[in-house]
């Protein structure tokens, strides 16, 4: 095999392909992340519809596939096949380009998101700055879409969106800075690198959310609110406020382009959740990495991914058993059993990897080769699990809260969050310099 392929396959390499200078593998990682995030968006679509339905005492999608599992695919096909409508009065080129801007901005953020110390496209030394800059571009897509539609409701939605971004980006940035300050505590030099931030949490032995309690917690809370506003999700979904502006900035959009907006929205949700996880929740690390790092603990933690998939398989299998007995449901029952089997197979693979890496003698070749693989799986698993919690919170917010009004949203941004985040930043600096 050519050198540019094999150079990064060595199991002793522990840096991202970007850092190792392997452009080929960086490209592969980009493709994997693109595919992975797209699949995650599809899953999120289904989970949101189901979870929201259960919040609201209804069933949600039940018809397309067992428990509506194929609904996102049916939706995607429908959206792709829909007629491509551009309003006559719209600015055609800008109308076309707008959803792409949002999508591009949302996906570009992933180049610096570390799913693990080596499971990232690159380790940019200005990672967090890059992230803030690129994710802010997402609003450009919305503003441009609202303007290009040449229609009143989208215009108002776009204006709301830009005002919203201005109000929340500042508080968000200050909260991020207070986390970055914490990275400099060990040796006086902080880092903007996303991987560096997680490693700093590892070295200091604490997730930044618990650092200088309650300062870290407050900064995290501010980011958690600001990221909902940043992604235009309820209760800050003013830009697409359904009951006020029919559909806000995407009123005139339909079919493929509308689905690109949806894809961008969910991608951005995953992206900002990843950032919160990286900055405050220890990124890819499993709980208590500084205490529970013996080989036995590593083995126990490495069982968790397999057990999770096993649990999901069991739920799917029980669901299949509980299907109504009528012959109408037979095909659905078979489908659900197959789905359970696939999940169970994945669980089995993960458990085998964990067992080989954790139970064989440490010096054996098999254990050495699989350990790196297992650590990679663990890193990605814990990272995704933490992000999933945030994604669930997004659904929970949507089911629970009414929508903020335009002026109230700006008031909260400027008069509440900005002073608090500024105060937290100053206090963090003071505590960091004088009390540690």
């Amino acid at each position: 095999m050519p050198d540019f392929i094999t150079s990064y396959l060595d199991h002793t390499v522990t840096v991202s392909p970007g850092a190792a200078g392997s452009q080929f593998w960086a490209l592969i990682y980009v493709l994997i992340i693109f595919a992975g995030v797209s699949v995650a968006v599809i899953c999120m679509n289904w989970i949101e519809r189901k979870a929201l339905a259960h919040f609201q005492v209804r069933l949600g999608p039940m018809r397309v596939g067992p428990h509506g599992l194929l609904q996102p695919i049916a939706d995607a096909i429908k959206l792709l096949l829909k007629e491509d409508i551009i309003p006559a009065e719209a600015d055609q080129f800008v109308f076309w380009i707008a959803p792409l801007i949002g999508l591009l901005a949302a996906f570009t953020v992933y180049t610096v998101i570390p799913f693990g110390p080596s499971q990232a496209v690159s380790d940019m030394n200005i990672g967090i700055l890059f992230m803030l800059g690129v994710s802010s571009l997402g609003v450009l897509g919305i503003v441009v879409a609202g303007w290009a539609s040449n229609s009143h409701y989208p215009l108002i939605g776009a204006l709301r969106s830009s005002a919203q971004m201005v109000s929340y980006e500042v508080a968000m940035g200050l909260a991020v800075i207070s986390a970055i300050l914490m990275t400099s505590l060990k040796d006086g030099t902080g880092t903007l690198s996303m991987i560096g931030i997680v490693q700093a949490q590892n070295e200091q032995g604490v997730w930044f959310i618990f650092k200088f309690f309650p300062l870290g917690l407050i900064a995290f809370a501010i980011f958690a609110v600001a990221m909902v506003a940043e992604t235009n999700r309820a209760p800050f979904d003013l830009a697409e406020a359904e009951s006020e502006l029919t559909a806000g900035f995407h009123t005139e959009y339909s079919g493929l382009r509308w689905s690109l907006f949806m894809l961008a929205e969910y991608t951005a949700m995953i992206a900002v959740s990843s950032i919160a996880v990286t900055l405050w929740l220890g990124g890819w690390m499993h709980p208590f990495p500084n205490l529970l790092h013996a080989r036995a603990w590593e083995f126990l933690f490495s069982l968790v991914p397999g057990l999770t998939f096993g649990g999901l398989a069991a739920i799917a299998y029980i669901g299949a058993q509980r299907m109504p007995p009528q012959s109408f449901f037979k095909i659905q029952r078979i489908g659900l059993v197959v789905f359970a089997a696939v999940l169970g197979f994945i669980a089995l693979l993960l458990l085998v990897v964990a067992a080989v890496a954790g139970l064989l003698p440490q010096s054996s070749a098999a254990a050495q080769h699989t350990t790196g693989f297992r650590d990679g799986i663990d890193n990605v698993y814990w990272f995704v699990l933490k992000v999933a919690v945030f994604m669930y919170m997004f659904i929970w917010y949507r089911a629970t809260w009414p929508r903020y009004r335009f002026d109230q949203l700006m008031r909260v941004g400027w008069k509440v969050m900005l002073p608090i985040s500024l105060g937290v930043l100053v206090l963090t600096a003071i505590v960091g310099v004088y009390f540690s």
Partner: protein
Amino acid sequence: MTVHDNDRANDAPGRGLSDLHRSHLDFDTADKTYLDTNELVINMGPQHPATHGVLRVILKLDGEKVLGTECVIGYLHRGVEKIAENRTYAMFNPYVDRMDYVAAVSNGLGYCEAVEKLMNVEAPPRAKYVRVILTELNRIASHQLWLGTHALDIGAMTPLFYTFRDREEILKIFEKYCGARLTTHSFRIGGCQFETYAGFEKDVKNFLAFFAPKIDEYETLLTGNRIWIERTKNVGVISGADCIALGVTGPVLRASGVKWDLRKAQPYAAYSAFDFEIPTGKNGDTFDRYMVRVIEMRQSMRIIEQAVNGIPEGPIMARVPKVIKPPVGEIYHSIEAPKGELGYFIVSDGSTQPYRVRIRPPSFVNLQALDLMVRGMLVADVVAVIGTLDIVLGEVDR
């Protein structure tokens, strides 16, 4: 729009009634002010998620601020009043169900009582009690639907599904009683057509036991919710005097501090026999109207409980001639529908068909207050105020 008008729109809280008589939308001059590009005229409706049917509101906006509104109605006009002139008294009865289709029972009650008054017939006591039970159940159902849609307009999705789940129990009772769920046509001139079914009392009592904790559930989601309070307090404020001047009735009037409820003021059916309270608000804002309606649901439960426990035996229908021919004369009878005063003015020429029927629908009159309430507020408040007025377009347009 002139500078002067802009100033008037700005001092939102202290607006007087004189503003109402101004022509508020002057489109010609708006187009001519080339330098002022801030004003935006948008149509909210007739197809819009938050206008509760086919209401069309023309909004004049300065950014997000509402400078003026104009309601365009009539998209659901069916000529109910004219139809009445070509039907016999009994044949017209089902038509009134189609006005406020959310509270069909109340509509039927008002019409039947008006014709009874005209004929000098009185429904037997048992019929009156059954009427009260069904009407109050319908009031709860109507308020539930209002609560769900109002919360949805403000952005809270979940209450809608909770209220619809519980409203279903009421509709089941209606269905068992008269076969229909929405347009019930449950009353006849002179009483009720059907005797209550076996187990009616038990069903109603079960519903009361089922529903009491559900109101608390709605309140947990909304009453103390910070965003809900911010979105409703001081939004769409209207004073009691303005309400009276505009003829606004029902919960909107009571939330402004005027204790006026026809069930107490001019008791009809069997209401004088029951012990209940009339909730009133202080500020006349959207939150007060929300609280008034929630308390009204609880009070309705009190009335139903008393009625179902004290329901007398006896005939369900008075002796009414087969062909209804009221004597020459005219009558105005009004009842407290869930949305306000629902009045029927019927002129009889002594024939089998009314000479003229004029209906005073509460939604139509209350809708007048929209402009007064939203001027100077934001677009989001227009939606909140339309919701809080609790309009049903079937009734506005008739």
